């Protein structure tokens, strides 16, 4: 159901944008916004790229990449915050 996935992706995008615009979660917002981005990336990977049928181990490596990219942003952000305060 690509259309249902698309709807979820759009809803997630608007939700994370709302969290950002209204500063809903304070310092936690970065963690939530980046986590939502990673969940969206995983949805695209599994349902749009159909990575389950990818040759070899690409699905595993791509999922790992999503985790690493999200971790770099989250860890980098909170380390910076700790340094400032």
């Amino acid at each position, binding site marked *: 159901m*690509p259309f249902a996935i698309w709807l979820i992706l759009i809803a997630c995008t608007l939700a994370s944008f709302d969290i950002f615009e209204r500063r809903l979660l304070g310092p936690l917002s970065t963690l939530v916004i980046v986590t939502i981005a990673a969940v969206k990336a995983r949805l695209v990977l599994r349902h749009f790229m159909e990575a389950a049928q990818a040759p070899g181990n690409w699905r595993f490596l791509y999922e790992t990449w999503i985790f690493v990219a*999200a971790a770099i942003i989250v860890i980098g952000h909170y380390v910076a915050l700790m340094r400032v305060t």
Partner: protein
Amino acid sequence: MNHPDSAPDAPRSPTFRHDQQQIGTDGLWLFVFIDMVIFTLIFFVFMTERLDEYSLFKSSQSHLNEIFGLCNTLVLLTSSWLVVEAVHAARRGAPKIIATRLALALVCGLMFVASKIIEYRAKILLGFSPATNPFFSFYYFITFVHFLHVVAGMVFLNSYRQRSIRCLDSPAYTTGLENVGVFWHYVDVLWLFIFPLLYLV
């Protein structure tokens, strides 16, 4: 069979690929993965530089308009969905559906390009160039490299749109379109991270 109008949308032939086959080719998945690793390094260097100049990065970021980022995200997600529809149409041998879905995906791509040009122009008119400070160097570099990915993807989408009739007699067409799809979805996924990295975090 050679004229697009004479080709019905649901014929089957023995040359069709089976759905259970693998998606795309190994080489394309490898190519995209190499690109992913390069972007991981760019993200890492950005976050490391940001550690040392946190206040500069935050104050520069406040000059970006996140509405552009939001629109870019919505447009790319929509185009990704349209490309999935085109790939599924190729597997069941429906060239007209492929052509319309890819055309709509290209319209989304053009909207992305237009939005980027408007955004760059607005930033430059405000006096923010790649030489202004490290944040804007990263901003222009990352978004421009991503922009080139979008343009490259559009060239491939257009080439497959023009040859959509080939899905009826060539399994290679469907595999090729899957490759284009994987690349296009990757460009989308990349933006899903670039948007929070530059605009939101």
